[in-house]
């Protein structure tokens, strides 16, 4: 019996909310045709517009009319809501509501998985474009409630798993309807990220740069496929092509990945909506240039708990600043004219979301922009401007009712209507007399506290003057209030009032302590809900302790009377002046005139060209894409980290140019980035302009994975390594031939011919074969070094540089004949088997054999004292000081094909200079100034003074945080993030 009743109940719910064409056999098929209206409200139908004493009329879930002077039909259910505010409900583009989470593949085998696990789709398991979140979706009323409490009425929800995550659906958050009503669009947006799917262990891509390359390749493949060039079906690409018109939402997670997502988006000709990090204020101009719309989470960091000084000591200024600067992120984006919507995705709760939303407004975001970011902007991004985000005729009746303007602190959301369905959020508290009041009688300033006023019998009063309590009585009958207050001396004041709950004060008449008639008024003391806005500390370039308040500019500089290491025929010349203008060396000589130049007295000091590190891994967010044998498709240029403190530390060691090489996880690594150490510049501006492109190759123990127990990837031996190179070069050759053939076809022939598939990896290798890209190869033992030269010769190319090259001395003659340069460590050895025969005389022997030799670092620490490493060429092997110095300047410049522009002190070359306190290779020398392109990026004095600046600013911020803590703000335990140091063997 019970069961069948329940069945009936369920069915009738079903009938109520089912499609009109669903048959019914359990009653009459009725239609709901009545109207509803909220009246007397302040209506905010769209951002920037507000109508007081307005009416919102709606029927069947849609707005009929909104505004004033609306004639309500007779069958209207009216709710008078005088004094309330009504806004369109918010829209969140990034939700996972109701979509089942991806299950992590827990059969993690001992060996790496290289192949895809699924068939029918793309070759990479992390591309899940054929996935439709709607298939795993079931409305989650609990989560929906949280959203509604924060003011949201509609979310676009998806499964956050994979690089391409397939499509999400648009859901209206009403508990009172069926899925047929809730799902507004089953395929509302496509979702992307740089993160791999949990459902597969396929190793590629293992890095952000790999994910970036994969997304680009996917785009090329889709274009090629769409043109009918493929003979096979690909379910993922088919799905991707079907998604062409959908908005694409990219979850970028951190500030640098936001820019990287924007870059890929622009590369593939799209305009992705990028879910941002909250730190966008640091990169406004770059973001403006890319032009993507951002999806801002409001996850302002909590203040650090200032009690544990031991931990607080470890916190960096950068972290403290983020606490201070994050709340103004939305305002800064708005000021910069960067379009954005707001998401609740990273908020801990609906309360936290609203708190941060109001904080954003308190920190300068206009209410209009804030509202637009929650309503019209997301609606427009979804192509739903007519139905969502506004309250106008024909739009869904999705709106919130609030007790006061929504952005005012303390305002409560009372109701959230979704598709016309009422959902209660908060109750309006019945007004009462309860509260604290301020009253002055004669000279006495008193505080009155009334409680339990809802019942006349229980009403009570406490009267205090300062810390003293005074006797008092209170009575309430028929809205008439009677109060008697007794002074400590015994005099009594009697006060009467008529209660009016709409007023914020009590007023009436009575007698004072002297017995004279008075009119009195007691002002309610309101609990002020306010938001403390802390003075924002200024941002620097980059935004950390050693950043510049203003990006330094080119100067006209005159170094007077230096010992100049020219690296030219003139050699080392004393008492010489060097003049720098507009980023170039314009004169080298004696007694140069100083018109207009800042003069630097270099008497007793040494001036050299900047140090060049051929092999560095600083200033990058990832180093290895080790997911496959070849990763020629990836580039370090994609993952530069211009904020890395090691850039500044390198400048402090006289380094001006570095090549950031890919790691050595695979035989064919990724493309490298050659940068100038322009501290404070954007990633893009760090790149050495028009430098020849390079790529990293690798040999030996790392590529055969000898030292980390991986046994299933070819090659496992040096024998196999050779075959990998031959195989890839051969395929690149054939790839090139296919394109050459195709490109020669007439346009008519092209119409019928199959176009070769564009393959980024093969393009890169083809560039090498054409002599347009150059190899720097990680290498140790002589056999493999010789092997690679022979393979290269077979394909008509030359290995530009062998890096590490610790047994280069054994085949120096062969290297010289082949024309390969050697960039080695000064003295490293004994760290693995293949460096057993590494000797510190390596550089000297190669040099004498006619090989162009450099010393490199491969290490963030060593790179800042490469001048000392150069000195080891003097010690081990007796290289002259002049030649040894070239090991870290001119020689690496030659290896990188940059010796026309840097590497020596010569008129016309880039002004990349270092002023040393002493002989540049002396252990006692210090870099005093490091200049790049005529800009002083490092000044030892400044670096020292900066410590004070950092300490002072930290003190200011700690004070602010203490205040916040005192005001009851939530805090977080200080956490110092780990800074990872990269080496060749770092696996991502």
């Amino acid at each position, binding site marked *: 019996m019970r069961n069948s009743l329940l069945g009936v109940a369920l069915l009738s719910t079903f009938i109520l909310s089912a499609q009109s064409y669903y048959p019914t056999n359990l009653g009459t098929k009725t239609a709901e045709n009545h109207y509803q209206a909220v009246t007397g409200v302040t209506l905010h139908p769209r951002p920037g517009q507000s109508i007081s004493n307005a009416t919102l009329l709606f029927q069947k879930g849609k707005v009929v009319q909104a505004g004033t002077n609306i004639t309500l039909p007779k069958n209207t259910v009216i709710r008078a809501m005088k004094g309330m505010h009504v806004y369109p409900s918010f829209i969140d583009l990034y939700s996972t509501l109701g979509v089942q989470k991806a299950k992590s593949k827990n059969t993690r085998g001992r060996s790496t998985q290289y192949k895809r696990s699924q068939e029918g789709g793309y070759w990479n398991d992390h591309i899940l474009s054929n996935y439709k979140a709607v298939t795993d979706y079931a409305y989650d009323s609990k989560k929906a409630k949280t959203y509604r409490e924060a003011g949201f009425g509609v979310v676009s929800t998806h499964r956050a798993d994979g690089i391409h995550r397939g499509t999400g659906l648009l859901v209206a958050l009403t508990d009172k309807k069926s899925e047929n009503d809730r799902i507004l669009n089953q395929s509302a947006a496509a979702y992307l990220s740089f993160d791999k799917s949990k459902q597969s262990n396929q190793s590629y891509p293992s890095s952000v740069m790999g994910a970036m390359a994969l997304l680009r390749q996917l785009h090329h493949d889709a274009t090629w496929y769409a043109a009918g060039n493929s003979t096979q079906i690909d379910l993922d690409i088919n799905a991707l092509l079907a998604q062409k018109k959908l908005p694409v939402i990219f979850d970028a997670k951190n500030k640098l990945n936001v820019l990287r997502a924007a870059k890929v988006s622009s590369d593939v000709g799209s305009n992705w909506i990028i879910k941002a990090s909250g730190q966008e204020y640091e990169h406004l101009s770059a973001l403006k240039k890319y032009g993507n719309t951002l999806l801002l989470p409001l996850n302002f960091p909590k203040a650090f708990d200032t009690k544990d000084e031991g931990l607080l000591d470890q916190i960096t200024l950068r972290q403290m600043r983020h606490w201070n600067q994050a709340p103004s992120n939305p305002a800064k984006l708005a000021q910069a004219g960067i379009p954005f919507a707001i998401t609740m995705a990273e908020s801990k709760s609906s309360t936290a979301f609203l708190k941060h939303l109001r904080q954003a407004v308190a920190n300068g975001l206009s209410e209009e922009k804030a509202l637009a970011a929650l309503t019209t902007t997301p609606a427009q991004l979804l192509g739903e401007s007519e139905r969502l985000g506004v309250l106008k005729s024909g739009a869904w009746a999705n709106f919130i009712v609030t007790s006061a303007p929504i952005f005012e602190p303390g305002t409560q959301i009372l109701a959230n209507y979704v598709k016309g369905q009422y959902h209660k959020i908060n109750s309006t508290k019945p007004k009462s007399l309860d509260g604290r009041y301020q009253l002055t009688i004669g000279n006495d300033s008193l505080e009155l506290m009334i409680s339990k006023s809802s019942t006349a019998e229980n009403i009570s009063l406490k009267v205090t003057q300062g810390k003293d309590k005074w006797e008092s009585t209170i009575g309430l009958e028929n809205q008439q209030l009677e109060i008697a207050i007794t002074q400590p001396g015994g005099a009594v004041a009697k006060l009467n009032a008529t209660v009016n709950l709409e007023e914020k004060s009590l007023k009436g008449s009575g007698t004072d302590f002297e017995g004279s008639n008075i009119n009195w008024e007691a002002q309610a003391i309101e609990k002020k809900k306010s938001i403390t806005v802390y003075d924002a500390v200024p941002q620097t370039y980059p935004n950390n302790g050693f950043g510049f308040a203003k990006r330094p500019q080119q100067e006209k500089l005159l170094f007077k009377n230096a010992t100049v290491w020219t690296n030219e025929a003139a050699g080392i010349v004393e008492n010489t002046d060097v003049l720098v203008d507009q980023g170039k060396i314009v004169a080298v000589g004696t007694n140069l005139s100083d018109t207009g130049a800042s003069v630097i007295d270099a008497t007793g000091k040494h001036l050299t060209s900047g140090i060049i590190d051929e092999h560095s891994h600083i200033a990058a967010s990832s180093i290895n894409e080790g997911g496959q044998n070849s990763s020629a498709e990836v580039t370090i240029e994609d993952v530069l980290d211009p904020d890395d403190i090691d850039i500044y530390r390198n400048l402090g060691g006289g380094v001006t140019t570095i090549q950031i090489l890919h790691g050595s996880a695979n035989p064919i690594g990724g493309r490298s980035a050659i940068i100038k150490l322009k501290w404070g510049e954007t990633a893009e501006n760090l790149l050495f302009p028009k430098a020849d492109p390079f790529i990293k190759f690798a040999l030996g123990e790392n590529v055969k994975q000898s030292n980390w127990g991986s046994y299933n990837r070819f090659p496992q031996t040096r024998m196999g390594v050779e075959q990998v190179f031959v195989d890839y070069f051969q395929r690149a050759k054939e790839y090139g031939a296919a394109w050459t053939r195709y490109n020669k076809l007439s346009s008519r022939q092209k119409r019928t011919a199959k176009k070769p598939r564009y393959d980024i990896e093969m393009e890169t290798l083809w560039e090498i074969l054409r002599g347009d890209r150059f190899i720097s190869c990680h290498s140790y033992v002589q056999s493999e070094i010789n092997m690679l030269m022979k393979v290269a010769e077979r394909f008509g190319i030359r290995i530009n540089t062998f890096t590490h090259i610790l047994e280069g001395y054994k085949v120096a003659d062969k290297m010289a004949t082949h024309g390969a340069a050697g960039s080695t460590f000064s003295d490293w050895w004994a760290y693995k088997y293949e460096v057993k025969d590494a000797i510190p005389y390596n550089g000297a022997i190669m040099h004498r054999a006619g090989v162009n030799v450099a010393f490199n670092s491969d290490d963030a620490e060593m790179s800042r004292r490469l001048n*000392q490493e150069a000195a080891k060429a003097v010690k081990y092997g007796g290289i002259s000081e002049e030649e040894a110095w070239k090991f870290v300047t001119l020689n690496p410049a030659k290896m990188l094909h940059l010796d026309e522009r840097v590497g020596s002190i010569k008129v016309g070359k880039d002004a990349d200079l270092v002023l040393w306190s002493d002989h540049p290779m002396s252990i006692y020398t210090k870099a005093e100034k490091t200049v790049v392109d005529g800009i002083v990026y490092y000044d030892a004095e400044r670096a020292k003074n900066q410590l004070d600046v950092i300490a002072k600013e930290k003190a200011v911020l700690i004070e602010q945080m203490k205040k916040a803590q005192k005001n009851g703000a939530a805090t977080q335990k200080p956490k*110092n993030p780990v800074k990872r140091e990269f080496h060749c063997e770092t696996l991502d």
Partner: protein
Amino acid sequence: MKNIISLIFCLPLWLVAQQTPAPPQSQSILIQDVTAHLGNGTVIENAAIGFAEGLLTYVGPASNAPTNYDKIIAGNGQHAYPGFIGMNTTLGLIEIDAVRATNDKDELGAMLPHVRSAIAYNAESQVVESVRPNGVLMAQVTPRGGRISGSSSVMQLDAWNWEDALVKADDGIHLRWPNPFQRGRWWLGEDPNLKRNKEYDKEVESLATYFATAKAYQVGSKPKHLPYAAMAGVFDGSKRLYIHTNGSQQIEESITKLMEWGAQKLAIVGGHQAPQQLELLQKHNIPVIIPRPHRLPSNEDEALKSTFNLGAQLIDAGLTVAIEMSGRMETMNTRNLPFYAGSFAAYGVPYEKAVAMLTANPASILGIDQEVGSLEVGKKATLFLSQGDALDMRTNILSHAFIEGRSISLESHQTQLWKRYSDKVN
């Protein structure tokens, strides 16, 4: 069989063994015309150094030197230094970092005071012979890992085997003080941020128990307990207890507590934040063996050269300071020890005091200063001659080195390869 024999004969000579240890000093030697850096802070220009039967017989102005020596070496203005002493090194305990089979530096277990580095020291290590040509002639060979890693021993670096190499056996015991902070292992998905180690108090407590028990054992408990027995020297002052720690809080707590627990002689190994505990260190006269300066600051807001400044900060405070080797590629880097002292000199340590960081100071910390660590008559003739300043890479070029008066080879596997392949190229 025949094949094997022919194979053996085919092996080139250089692969057969390392440098042959030098025989005991048979002739007395006088080195003339050198700048003698005595190690104790003094320098003598135009000096002569005489030694016989392994001991120094003359150190002073060349003009006053006696001439009755069997052999005279013309110093030609070179610089003479006492043999440098590497502290807290793994020299001889591991040959190739990535080859597990060559690794003898870290024993299983947490409390291993009885585990002795001396007997695992590989006197024939190719790494050992590569450090001598830079002036490093002695080393405190020290195990790694655990809470109490084991006992270190001081070795001289030219010997047939570990027994012959011993300068001082089991000189000290190495304790790794618990860390009140910790980072999660990010590669296992843990939070890598630095946070309080919740177990810290417990870890200190268990050390307290260990020391109390070990001390109680010393009054004559039976049966013999190997680890506790090995702790005897810590309580009677015959062995120094080396506390490996860096943070200010740990330095303070470890010193206070260990003194309370009965440890007699202490030293701090590490001491990155020792400048915050100068008073305590001064008060108890505790030496600090500081890390190599060639490492990165621990935090991006730190002074760029913070690791270089540490030497002067402690030496100016009058502490006894030496340099320890732990860190990345520590074994092979032992040969760069002189340049660490040079780097400290570049950042404020007066030159002769920087030399003392490698000579007199470690000798006194190790308790071998009666025998070595400075060029003084009666001490062992363990010294070397360098063409120039031995703390600077450009000029650290050795012509002679003596250990206990024995003229040791400055050749190595590496110099042999150098010569062999130089000949090939030329």
